[in-house]
């Protein structure tokens, strides 16, 4: 059944992605389909190497060679229109990245450039995506100051004002670019820097970073993991993106810090009403945080449902196995038998067939399609698609 289009932000349809390695072609994504609704937190769970991260990188189109998107569609709904992002060219994409869709990475300290201070790095995103707004703020402030200033200072401020107005009209204006290179004249940029700094501090404060005035001047190595992750989240939130992709943002943090970050993410989501794609392998986090869950296995989405349904009535044998293997006190330790198949030579049909206790003949012949088994509950398994 087709959903109302405006309700969805992203709809990934039949996404195929291969890695061309020396050992052979790794079929990392094999027809991935999922949708992200406005204002929800969608969790994506699965084992390492099942394609969770690659799916998120594909949405931003930053898959690096030897990886290559081979087919499918990523439909992106913004301002009432639907675009296929795979058709966007590189300059368009770089305007989408950070502005409409941004990403938080797994290892916070590695995601920050060691040679720049926190303020510089967050500031860079301000310059990339919110420059106009900042220039407008500076112009407003300058206009006020020009009225009260006298003599030489007034002249200087007028000159600055004219430069900023020109910059607003034409960001690539040659005169402004030249002025930015001339030693004393380029001081006019300091006003902009000050404004960016002010906004960065504000942003850091909303992320509950203690003493933000000091933190903006710090370098990544001076921060603790939790603080660094907050800074990375700040970077991602600069332009108020429609979709925030969080790729295991708490995996490398202490449990207590992890809880703080999770609370923060949920609060931000409520406050800003943004949509989050949360990638993790921690089912506890999913149960705590997400509205809906997509379970991935070996490059396929095997089940999508809202959290309660998925935890109460998992349909796909893999999801069942996954939930059973959560260690609980007083319960014998169980796991799914077998190993994840090689993605270079995946088994024919359903990729889970070798490990599945319900495997039938058809499971070796035909790939199960994603069908709606219950309300808003999709599953890719022949048990539910009327197979024999």
């Amino acid at each position: 059944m087709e959903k109302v289009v405006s309700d969805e932000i992203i709809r990934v349809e039949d996404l195929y992605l291969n890695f061309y390695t020396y050992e052979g072609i790794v079929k990392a994504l094999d027809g991935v389909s999922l949708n992200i609704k406005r204002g929800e937190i969608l969790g994506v769970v699965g084992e390492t190497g099942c394609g969770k991260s690659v799916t998120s990188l594909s949405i931003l189109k930053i898959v690096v060679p030897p990886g290559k998107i081979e087919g499918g569609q990523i439909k992106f709904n913004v301002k009432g229109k639907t675009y296929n992002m795979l058709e966007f060219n590189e300059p368009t994409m770089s305007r989408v990245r950070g502005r409409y869709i941004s990403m938080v990475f797994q290892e916070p300290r590695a995601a920050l450039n060691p040679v720049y201070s926190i303020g510089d790095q967050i500031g860079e995103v301000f310059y990339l995506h919110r420059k106009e707004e900042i220039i407008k703020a500076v112009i407003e402030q300058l206009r006020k100051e020009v009225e009260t200033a006298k003599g030489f200072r007034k002249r200087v401020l007028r000159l600055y004002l004219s430069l900023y107005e020109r910059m607003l009209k034409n960001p690539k204006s040659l005169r402004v670019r030249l002025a930015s290179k001339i030693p004393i004249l380029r001081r006019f940029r300091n006003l902009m820097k000050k404004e960016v700094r002010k906004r960065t501090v504000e942003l850091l404060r909303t992320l509950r970073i203690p003493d933000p005035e000091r933190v903006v001047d710090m370098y990544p190595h001076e921060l603790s993991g939790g603080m660094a992750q907050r800074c990375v989240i700040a970077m991602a939130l600069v332009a108020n993106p429609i979709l925030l992709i969080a790729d295991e943002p708490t995996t490398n943090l202490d449990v207590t810090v992890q809880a703080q970050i999770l609370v923060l993410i949920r609060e931000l989501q409520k406050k800003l009403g943004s949509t989050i794609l949360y990638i993790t392998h921690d089912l506890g986090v999913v149960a705590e945080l997400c509205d809906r869950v997509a379970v991935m296995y070996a490059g396929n989405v095997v089940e999508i449902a809202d959290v309660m349904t998925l935890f109460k009535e998992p349909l796909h044998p893999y999801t069942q196995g996954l939930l059973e293997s959560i260690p609980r006190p007083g319960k014998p330790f169980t796991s799914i038998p077998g190993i994840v198949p090689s993605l270079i030579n995946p088994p024919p049909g359903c990729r889970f067939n070798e490990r599945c206790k319900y495997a039938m003949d058809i499971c070796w012949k035909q790939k199960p399609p994603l069908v709606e088994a219950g309300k808003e509950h999709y599953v890719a398994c022949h048990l539910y698609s009327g197979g024999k």
Partner: protein
Amino acid sequence: MLKIKIPERFQPTIKEFKFVLRRVKDSPLSLAGIAIVMGFVFIAAFAPILAPPQLDPPYLIPRDPALGFKLEPMPPSPSHPFGTTQAQRDLYYGCIWGTRWAFQIALEVIICAVAIGLVLGLISGYYGGIIDEVIMRFTDIILAFPGLILAITLVTVLHELNWQTIDAVLLSIILIGWPGYARLIRGETLRVKNEDFIEAARACGASDLRIMFRHILPNTIYSIVIVASLDFGGIVITAAALSFLGLGAPIGWADWGRLIYDGMGFVSGGLRWWWSWVYPGIFIVLFVLGWSLLGDALRDVLDPLYRRK
């Protein structure tokens, strides 16, 4: 007692700076290197005062008209502290202005070679694939020849194309110099480009150019600084070698290699005309030694893997 209050923010910076100073103070070789290079910088900067120029361009060594065109070099005397060369050119003037000339050659070559190497190395490492192959095979071609021999060939060819001798020398040293830097930067780029923060920058919407120059370059620059300072002396040696072979600076030019070339005919006289080749020789040796020591000192201070040892 006067006490300047330093903001707490700068405490780590100051601590770091003190550590660097202690590091330098503890190693006499670093100190010697810095002292030698500073000495040469002083000589180069104050050349017009130490040896007032008489001809235009000032790199031309003035001749002493009182001594005429006598072929035999004159020994050191009050009016010619280092003696004279074969055509009665003042050796002291040559050595002093030769210092300035050495700095000029080395700086011009380093700046151009690093700029070319930087851009090509970044492009090569960042984009990879066929672009990388083309650029790297091109560097292979240049690196396949011994540097000096290639330089000699290039200078000769450029001569035939009616290039100025000095420009030909500079250009040929740049052309043999950049592949080293290109390789170095490429390697560093390959290391840095797979770091998470590059992916993060891309996810924030940074363009390729921005990533290359703002995110990768600052992370690779230390090794370039060290290698360039080690090369500083080497470039002067190459230029001197070209002059010594008669391909570099024209007659009467204040170039150490040229001065040694002029004194070469008198080496056979044993110590009889020693000044004609010993003085320019000492300048070259000290200059190269100073820069090598300084390069080592920089590595000790800048390289995080070495510094704490």
